[in-house]
């Protein structure tokens, strides 16, 4: 009888150790995945803003340049200034939303409280079964105490098994999402990268062309007698602001952050596939580098917005 009790206790201990191990592997994912999601949200929001602002900034530039040259502006000129059609922009915004949804789902899976909820439900179920059994046992005139202890012990094992099962399912879901998301996420990062590279080139050429027009106007005003000091002041302030934007723009290039995002995602995938401490450390390192690149990008974008061009 004593030996039987010890065997049960050892079995219970082993189950608890197994559950703890599964719980730890899922918990380890939480922080890095949360960081990855936060950083990728910044990248997608920067991409969203760059693409939606592209037409607006091009229209503003064309209007300003025409004014500097004293030229006419027609509705067709404004329409022609747009670089991206609304339907093509919408396709991109949808894909960016999908990427956000993917990262949010990874966080939801990694942070899921389902194992705890299921374990609690299993405990509640066990209590209900014990109460029912006690009621039936009373009906038959049996003893309550030994009956209750047997049921509650079996119930605690059941609750731990179900918790471990749920944790295993969570881990499987996370790995499945990561490995199946590998191709589309990388392809999407590449597509966003190309889009932003082109958008960046358009913004850069626009700003340099605007500075050229401002300088032209400034030089014409400066060469005309009598010199209009007020006009020169307005123009020089515009030249300074445009020049500042050109210099800051280099740091607002999202290419570095996107490359780092791709690297971090690849390391997460590698860890999901191989699951070794070394791949985990690599993934954490790349995620940290990604977060750093995103912080630099955010600071540059913020500074760029402050320029009154």
């Amino acid at each position, binding site marked *: 009888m004593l030996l039987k009790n010890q065997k049960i206790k050892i079995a219970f201990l082993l189950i608890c150790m197994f559950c703890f191990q599964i719980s730890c592997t899922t918990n380890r994912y939480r922080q890095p995945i949360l960081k990855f999601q936060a950083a990728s949200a910044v990248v997608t929001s920067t991409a969203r803003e760059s693409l939606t602002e592209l037409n607006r900034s091009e229209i503003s530039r064309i209007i300003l340049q025409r004014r500097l040259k004293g030229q006419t502006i027609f509705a067709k000129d404004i329409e022609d200034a747009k*670089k*991206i*059609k609304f*339907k*093509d922009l919408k*396709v991109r915004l*949808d*894909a960016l939303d*999908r*990427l956000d*949804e*993917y990262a949010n*789902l*990874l966080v*939801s899976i990694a942070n*899921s409280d*389902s194992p705890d*909820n*299921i374990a609690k*439900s*299993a405990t*509640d*179920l066990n*209590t*209900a*079964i014990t*109460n*029912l059994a006690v*009621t039936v046992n*009373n*009906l038959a005139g049996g003893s309550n105490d030994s009956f209750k202890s047997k049921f509650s012990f079996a119930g605690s094992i059941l609750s731990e098994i179900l918790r471990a099962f*749920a944790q295993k*399912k*969570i881990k*499987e*879901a996370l790995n*499945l*999402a990561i490995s*199946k*998301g590998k*191709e*589309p*996420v990388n*392809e*999407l990062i590449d*597509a966003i990268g*190309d889009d932003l590279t*082109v958008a960046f*080139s*358009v913004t*850069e*050429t626009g700003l*340099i*062309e605007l*500075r*050229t027009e401002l300088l*032209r*106007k400034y030089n*014409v005003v400066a*060469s005309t007698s009598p010199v209009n000091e007020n006009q020169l002041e307005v123009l020089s302030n515009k030249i300074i602001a445009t020049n500042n934007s050109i210099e800051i723009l280099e740091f607002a290039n999202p290419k570095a952050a996107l490359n780092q995002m791709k690297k971090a995602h690849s390391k997460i995938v590698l860890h999901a596939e191989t699951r070794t401490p070394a791949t985990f450390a690599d993934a954490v390192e790349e995620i940290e580098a990604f977060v750093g690149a995103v912080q630099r990008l955010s600071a540059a974008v913020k500074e760029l917005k402050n320029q009154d061009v």
Partner: protein
Amino acid sequence: MAELVDSILVMGKTLNSMNIRLSNIHPLSEDYQKLEVMRDAFRQRYDMLVKYFFEHSAKRFIAVDGELAKVNEEAQAALNKLEKMQKTLDTITKLIGLVDSFITAIITAVV
């Protein structure tokens, strides 16, 4: 698509060089007018290529969006399954509680 992006970048750099050159010439000189005409013609081609890029790369996003939507659906389904399991346990618990109350009520009535 990579070749198209590279072409846009090279054209953009050339456009920038032309603008920087213009910025160093007096606007009332003849050279300025000539270079400005060339710059405007080059800008027109650059803009056309940019528009072509945005229009043609849209299908890349459509394809990837569909694939990622499937992955998201599967991940969501896995989460839902666990929630369903918890709800099933809760329903059974409630049912057993009801049976227990029912038996207790009968015993009380009989006694």
